[in-house]
């Protein structure tokens, strides 16, 4: 007779698996990739491909030849890291710089810790910050979006809104003077604006956020608490001195705020697992980002803020316990 399986319950499993969850994140990033290709032409596609291929290749080589463990590049997690890294750098970044970033992201930030699920810091952000510090000129050479097609983007270079503000304030200008000179509009910020490929369209990023929520890939706590904190904290500063501090909407729509709060801060591995902890984590990111933006040397601070809060996740997980069922036994 045929042998039957005997194992303890449960005997069935839900439909979710790691691969599908990660694939959903990639799908959520597609609108952003599409907008970047629309604005920067094929050079944006080139960057994305280089990032993804480099990250997948680095993980494959390390897992197979150095660690000699099971290769799990098919789980899409390296694809996400590659995509996020590519979306985080200026459009004219040379391909070899991106490859170096990928080696740091996957090799140093992920595989040295033990691979998927073990890393303390968000790999894509470690890669980005490494590049920012190592290649400061290349990493701040921003370009104005313009519909062109071709593998070499030759648009006008310019500064990001956050950079312009920082520069202007440093020169002793007031915000209203800076705004008047540069003609900022919120509508522009919503659709296309100067920045990295992943920062140019708020609408595309929000579309991805909605998709992730609908598919129940992430919970809204982290993202919403970052937004809330940014609005409240920068709002207080703005009310104190509107000529010195940027307004909440500006802070929400500029720089890497949306990309970071939707796709980087919500990375499963490097964020808390329980709602209370998620909120503490989000509030921390919000505060640190605004502190860096308003008082720090860098115009943008969300990458640093997320990395700093990543370090607190084990502590947060230790102290934030889910609501248990029923009261304590007497």
């Amino acid at each position: 007779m045929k042998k039957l399986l005997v194992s303890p319950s449960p005997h069935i499993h839900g439909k979710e698996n790691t691969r599908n969850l990660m694939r959903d994140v990639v799908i959520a990033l597609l609108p952003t990739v599409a907008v970047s290709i629309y604005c920067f032409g094929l050079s944006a596609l080139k960057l994305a491909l280089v990032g993804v291929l480099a990250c997948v290749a680095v993980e494959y080589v390390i897992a197979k030849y150095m660690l000699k463990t099971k290769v799990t590049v098919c789980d899409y997690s390296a694809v996400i890291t590659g995509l996020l890294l590519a979306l985080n750098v200026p459009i004219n970044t040379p391909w070899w710089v991106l490859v170096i970033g990928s080696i740091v992201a996957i090799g140093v930030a992920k595989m040295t810790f033990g691979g998927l699920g073990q890393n303390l810091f968000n790999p894509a952000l470690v890669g980005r910050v490494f590049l920012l510090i190592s290649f400061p000129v290349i990493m701040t050479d921003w370009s104005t979006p313009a519909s062109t097609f071709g593998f070499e983007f030759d648009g006008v270079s310019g500064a990001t809104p956050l950079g312009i503000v920082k520069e202007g304030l440093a020169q002793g200008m007031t915000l209203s003077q800076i705004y008047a000179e540069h003609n900022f509009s919120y509508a522009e910020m919503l659709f296309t604006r100067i920045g990295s490929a992943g920062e140019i369209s708020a609408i595309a990023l929000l579309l991805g956020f909605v998709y992730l929520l609908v598919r129940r890939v992430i919970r809204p706590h982290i993202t919403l608490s970052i937004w809330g904190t940014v609005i409240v904290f920068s709002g207080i500063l703005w009310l104190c001195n509107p000529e010195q501090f940027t307004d909440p909407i500006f802070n929400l729509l500029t720089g890497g705020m949306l990309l970071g709060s939707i796709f980087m801060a919500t990375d499963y591995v490097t964020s808390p697992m329980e709602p209370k902890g998620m909120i503490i984590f989000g509030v921390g990111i919000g505060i640190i980002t605004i502190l860096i933006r308003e008082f720090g040397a860098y115009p943008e601070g969300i990458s640093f803020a997320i990395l700093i809060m990543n370090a607190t996740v084990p502590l947060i997980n230790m102290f934030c316990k889910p609501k248990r069922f029923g009261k304590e036994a007497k």
Partner: protein
Amino acid sequence: MKTFSIGGVHPHDSKISANAAIESFPIPEVAYISMGQHLGAPAEPIVAPGDKVKVGQLIANANGFISAPVHSSVSGTVKGIETVFDLAGNPCKAVVITVEGDEWVETIDRSDKIEKEIKLDSKEIIEKIKECGIVGLGGATFPTNVKLSPPPGKKAEFLIINGAECEPYLTSDYRVLIEMPEQVLIGAAIMMKALNVTQGFIGIEENKPEAIKVMTEKAKGYPQIKIVTLKKKYPQGGEKQLIDAVVGRKVPSMGLPIDTGAVVQNVGTALAVYEAVQKNKPLFEGILTVTGECCPQQKNYKHRVGTPLSKIIEAVGGVPEAAAKVISGGPMMGKAIANLDAPTLKGSSSVLFLTEEQTKRKEESNCIRCGKCIEACPMGLEPYLLNKLAKARRMDDLEANKIYDCIECGCCQFTCPAYIPLLGTIRLAKADVMKIMRSRPKK
């Protein structure tokens, strides 16, 4: 719509046997009546080889407070007291009876007439339930009379009948609800009288609209009993979850349902109580669902306790070619059957066939700390953490993180995207932690 407040998952309900009316399964030629059909000490046989027994005759006495007597489900000659193997393959003592005819004990009322009037008083009801060997038929098979006698200092306030049947595939309670609604209501009324409470609830999940309709109609004659429609969510039928869902009270950690004033009984138990108290019929029959997508026939059988499972499986055409696992109970908490010749018990609720594709465990990968197990846990625990601590054998930390509160519902493992066998690890560690806790001197 009401439901429990923390966690839960939504497996497909797969109630494909819902429309199969209850059929009586033929009496077997030989019945193997196990002595260990309930939670607690096995019963002590009082018959000897060669004795003639009738259907419903007492063949074994309860052996202690938490134990239950066993009655013969067939008439015939006792062949012997033998060691048989239960569905997990563990040996247990059983009275083996060669069946001759179908002669019932005369005191059992076999008519179809519904007896509405409850003549016995509270004490007599509990005594009757005890004599008739009634045990909880929701899975745990805890002696019902014990549950109906709250310990000193505790007072029952209401009775909840569990008609949630939240496990996928199972339909025996559903069939009882729509075929014998009046009996279930009278059974509930009897238990309410025994507990001396005036409030009763029957919780039914929304995926059983027919049962809700029939019960609501019939319950008009029982103003003290309320039918509560519950949202479909697993594990709604867990005792603690059901109390939370129906009356919004939470059983304390390490506490008992009675701490909230609730006593929970299953639909099947209510029927058994009705039959025992009103019809004088001990518990020797049960309703068993035979189902599975790969099974050519979907059945709800009324079986005599002690019928070999293999006979029931034969009746639906044997183990289907495509089946990879045979389960007694539901797919979330049931047990995989290792021995198809095991006899049915009072608490047997189903024989479920699952295909390899439905049940095969996929290869485990790294935990990605997605937190889905925390979201799913109906007890508010952290399964990923318990799994990690259990592997490191950190018993103190396991206790501090309340591993003892785990109800082993399997939600964490069901939902884990990395296919980590969370419950497998946690279940073993929980047993060890409880052993340590029990071994401590009492304050």
